């Protein structure tokens, strides 16, 4: 290519980039579709406990609980002590896993399919999905189910949040957790109180 051609390509690229702030991300879409395909047989199981167990396996495999666990602490993520971490993370994982289980079993019998994605940055991609086999009048027929995919430093994709119609779980958890920490005097005491709160919930 001569200089003019290169310049033309550069300008074209620049215009394209400027015109579309968000791109679809094929790799992330394939990743989520794979997770959904794996979830499919579990969602078809008749036995509720088997369904929950199946989903738990997938959550442990594909959801980055460590990441979410930090995120939901808000500013306190920088202040949590190593002793607190040892208590907090296993409890948080149990708690968050149960939330995901419950959220997903709502779609039991349905087939979820990826419909598109939005790149917020190289490392944060929102993959959109919908119920593919919805019958007219189906409760979730129009629900937009989104998966926040984060690419970690090793280039691995993990799910860090799930949302329905623009309402995201981790964001809600962050507001709840930071509220509990603040109401109990902030870190470190507030974090201890939070840990106790989660323990009570998990033990229920």
């Amino acid at each position, binding site marked *: 290519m001569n200089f003019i051609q290169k310049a033309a390509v550069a300008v074209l690229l620049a215009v394209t980039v400027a*015109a*579309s*702030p*968000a791109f679809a991300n094929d790799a992330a879409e394939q990743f989520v579709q794979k997770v959904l395909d794996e979830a499919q047989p579990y969602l078809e199981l008749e036995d509720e406990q088997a369904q929950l167990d199946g989903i738990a396996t997938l959550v442990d495999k594909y959801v980055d609980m*460590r*990441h*979410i666990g*930090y*995120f939901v602490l*808000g500013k306190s*993520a*920088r202040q949590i002590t190593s002793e607190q971490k040892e208590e907090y993370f296993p409890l948080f994982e149990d708690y968050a896993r*149960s*939330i995901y289980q*419950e959220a997903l079993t709502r779609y039991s019998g349905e087939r979820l399919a990826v419909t*598109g994605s*939005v790149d*917020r940055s190289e*490392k*944060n991609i*929102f993959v959109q999905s919908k119920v593919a086999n919805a019958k007219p*009048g189906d409760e979730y027929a*129009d*629900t*937009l189910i*989104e998966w*926040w995919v*984060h690419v*970690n*430093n090793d280039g691995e994709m993990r799910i*860090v*949040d799930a*949302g329905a*119609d*623009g*309402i*995201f779980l*981790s*964001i*809600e958890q*962050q*507001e*709840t*957790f*930071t*509220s*509990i920490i*603040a109401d109990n005097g902030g870190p470190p005491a507030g974090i201890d109180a*939070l840990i106790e*709160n*989660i323990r009570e*919930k998990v033990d229920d």
Partner: protein
Amino acid sequence: MSMRLTVFAALFFFLAGGAAHAQLSDAGDPEEFAEELKRGEADTTEGKEIDPWEGFNRKMFAFHNVFDENLLVPLAKVYRATTHKKQRKGIRNFLDNLKTPVILANDLLQGEFDRAGDTLGRFAINTTVGFGGMGDPAERIGIAQHSEDFGQTLAVWGLDTGPYLFLPFFGPSTLRDGFGAAVDTGLDPSFYYRSDAMATAKYVRAGATALAIREPLIEPLDDIKENSLDYYASFRSFYLQSRKREIQNGRTNYDELPDIGDFEEFDEE
């Protein structure tokens, strides 16, 4: 009037979130998307900043929940038990159709003339072919329902959300949207008709709206209450997230979501 206003507004608002219809059209004008997304930008205040009246709000929330658990939910269960899903859909359609003047006025105030046309078209079609608004044939020919209210109009005009506000019977709101709800009451022509029959009709409408909004939320709100470490904070978050999306006409502004960021470094200390 005040009781009628509160009950009506409560219903109107209580589930602005749950009632909001997700409409994510792929087709459309990118500039319009950008414009719609910008509306929510003023509403970025998070956590404490959005809820300076938390102490008051928590008390009101606790009070409201006594009413909710002991009256609203049992009635909503009766409503569910005595009606068929299709009938409830018809009732929701009918109540939505009654909101036409308010939606239309706000479409126009926002300069959304296409959407105003949709609102008028839906009213004409659904009131006639749709048996007085019970059916929604307009939806089937591609004119989807959308909601507007004066709170959203104020957002479009650039007014910030203001503090989160929870009032008993009235439900979750913000200072801006609560004021908007009062204005909407005045935008409704029924506000200006005074007769015994109209008064009864308004009570019936308010009651029906309350049940129509609360009934589909019985399980979702139970789940939240059951799972949340702090029902108040979770409820506020769900409400504010869904309200923001409603103001952005059913779109999500991804850039505005908090940064989940990289936490890998945290474990390397």
